[in-house]
């Protein structure tokens, strides 16, 4: 005889993620993190501790950084959610993304989405943060690789990149055009 586990009924919800409305059927107890990753396939937001202690799951809710592992998806109805996947504009990197690349602020990259989101929230509030302000802003985000220095430098450098418009369209397949067979000679 097989036993069956009882599962709570799913409920409909409309979420606004990265500027788009998404209609979903979710468990009422699902965290925003879970819904982003599993229902919306937005896996850029990372899951690490589920305790609110690492910051890897940070997204912006109405422009403010929030730990998506501690927020119920249901509670986000009517709010604007921004994830790391929503930062590029018209195919260009966000200046802060460019700054992370230029300053060598990325190693393994697992903390990076959370760090970038926290950094973006800071820049939206204070367009020219000092190194100390940047350091305080990321104090709740753990990174085991970098020792944080280059992340702080990236946040401080982002405004200059925004001013000079030097954020680039990332090179890669999308820019390389059609692949043609080279001449094979004689």
């Amino acid at each position, binding site marked *: 005889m097989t036993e069956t586990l009882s599962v709570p009924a799913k409920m409909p919800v409309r979420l606004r993620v990265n500027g788009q409305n998404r209609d979903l059927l979710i468990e009422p107890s699902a965290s925003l993190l879970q819904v982003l990753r599993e229902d919306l396939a937005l896996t850029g937001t990372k899951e690490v501790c589920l305790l609110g202690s690492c910051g890897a799951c940070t997204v912006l809710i109405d422009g403010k950084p929030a730990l998506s592992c501690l927020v119920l998806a249901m509670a986000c109805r009517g709010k604007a959610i921004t994830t790391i996947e929503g930062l590029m504009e018209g195919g260009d990197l966000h200046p802060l993304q460019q700054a*992370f690349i230029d300053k060598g602020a990325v190693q393994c990259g697992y903390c990076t989405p959370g760090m970038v989101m926290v950094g973006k929230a800071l820049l939206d509030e204070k367009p020219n943060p000092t190194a100390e302000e940047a350091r305080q802003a990321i104090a709740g985000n753990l990174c085991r690789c970098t020792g944080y220095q280059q992340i702080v430098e990236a946040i401080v450098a982002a405004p200059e990149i925004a001013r000079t418009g030097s954020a680039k369209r990332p090179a890669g397949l999308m820019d390389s055009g059609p692949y043609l067979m080279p001449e094979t000679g004689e």
Partner: protein
Amino acid sequence: MNKLNEYAVIGKKTTKTDAVAKVTGGARFATDIYLPNMLWAKVLRSPVPHARILRIDTEKAKKLDGVKAVLTAADVPEARYGALVLDMGMFARGKVRYIGEAVAAVAAVNEEIALAALKLIEVAYEPLPAVFDPLEAIKPGAPILHEDLKSYKTLFERTDKAMTGNVNYQAEITSGDLEAGFAQSDYIFEDSYEVPKQHPSYMEPNSTVALVDSDGRLVIHNTTQRPHINQAILSSLLGIPIAKIRVVPCHVGGGFGGKNRTLTEPTAAALALKTRQPVRLTFSHEEEFTSATTRHSGVMVMKTGVKKDGTLVASDVKLYYDCGAYAPTPNAVWLGAISSSGAYRIPHCRVEAYSIYTNKMMGGAFRGYGAPQSNFARESQMDRIARELKIDPIELRLKNCLVEGDSLHTGQKLHSVKVKETLLKARELSGWGKGRVPANRTLGVACGIFACGGFATSGIVRLNMDGTATVATGAMDMGQGLRTVMGQIAAEELGMAAEDVTVIIGDTDSTPFDVGIFGDRGTHTAGMAVQMAAQDARKQLVEQAAFAFKTTPNNIVLGGGKARLASDPDKVLDYKDLLGGGQYKKGGPIIGKASINLTETAFDPAIVRGAASRMFSTYTFATHIVEIEVDPKTGVVRVPKTYAVHDCGTVVNPDGLRGQIIGGLATGLGYALYEGVAFENGQVQNPSFLECRPPTAVDMPEIVFDTVEEFDEKGPFGAKGVGNVSVINMAPAIANAVETATGVRVTSLPITPGKIVQGLGQLAKEEA
């Protein structure tokens, strides 16, 4: 010997190849894989530290709707694995030996059902006496963890103390005449030091997705530092030929040695083979802290004989490293033994190094690998010697430090030794002894040595028709930037731009063998193979160019993606024309290859017994000086500034090097002040980042960083590693500064406020 100016790519700012993917959220990690039909695996773990398993009943769990498979030791081949000592199977068999050991695993259609099924598995245990302290574990009459230890297969030369009682791996180093050395000494210092387990705390948990593909091959998507060794271990555990297994690692969310393991792969693979569905096994945050591997905890006893003028004469060291219930990498204590004489010339040495079983979670590899422990002892004691002999700590170190041509206590003759230069430069940067530090701050120094490079690796460089190159290495990038550095090395050798080189890593189908990335062998050893493969390709390219120009190879100059005639530099051919324009007639497609093993010389058995490796390629050195503040009331230590000077050979990627060093210092800072897995009867007391916290951005000092000019003739373009030595000096440097500031000598890690306050109380009592 500065050759940097000659290079086009080496030493130049080069963007990390995976940076765009990682800042946009596009980089795929093993935890990001969700496949159709994928099952979720969960592991039932032992709740007791030591017990006989009387019975396991999985029937109820198997009947739960949605459960597809339940496995225990009875369902898998009886095979064991390990780096030197083959002692661990996929599941506990007959006995459990630590809280958190895998007893059974379930695959179900979702995580909730898998977890519910675990609760339905009934296990009857008969508790056995347990032992948690390595020094207790080696006493006669201690509970024995592995009764059949002697029969286990080992991959090292066993000493008579190895594989007896609770000692698994053991090594001894003896050089000079210890007794004569102590007899010649004016003073003898004897101290004991203790260190806890430190979790690697990579952000990404261990995770594997295993599946059987349409050709019937086992495919593994995981997070690992050693795909080719994963493949070999899976083959031996599951009885499948290596070629029928493909390991395709994803981006690795930090490894630091902790992912030089095979933890989730076998279980996920066995479940996938059983169910013929993709299976994902991801460790929970708590499982990371109870069932992954940590830096070895241990006790170091150090007796050192010194002349009045501070000359080190004799050293007798005993290292007791606690490897927990299994010994996946007891080599840690071997590396600890190598670093235990510090970066010093000591003519008469003995080291006895033990890896000891206790009923605790496993000790494994973690950045610094064995050296943070022994260097904490060595460098703490060096300061005690300096204090008692009233010699400046840096002067004492300069007097004894190794120089070019010296031999280590293991008998290995050293080249590329610039520890003295790191000491001098750090002294100058920090203003040591110049009264420049603010009144509330105190300086502390430590230097260290770490073995760099070696073991087997290989590389393949293919030149493509469009003038680009594809490099394949079995070495992994765990975030440190190996892919970028391999690309730079190949680009330099081939005379191409870094962007024109694409580096493939890890995938065992498309990359050649590498033994795993550890021990500073990424840039150095994998880099050497890539350089040699690129040289091979370059030679063929020169021949093709000579054929095209109807000249001899020595009349060809390569560079900037073009081949030229030396005799007539206006005669130019782009690589793309050379490679794509029908030149394949001559010699066929260009494939450069190299297979190397940089550890070919064995240690002298008269000096070293029980060696876990052959001689390392080279050694790296560093000096770190910390500036600290101690609050005498609360005992809280802050480290506002740190000076770090490294001897790392040629700098290949400046941003990468800086990030590596600062990251290493952060891990060293955590080891010194905050981290330490706490146990109560074998149960981890602080299994999360909340309770066992790595340093945050606001804990980090301002870092003044420099390198000394050096060219290691055995490394690619003169480069050596940097990842490990950056970790090993922080704890002793901070302990040394704390004693200068407060008079309190803390001999165990972490250096908590409580220990300082207690020490101050003790000092006050002694004065009264």
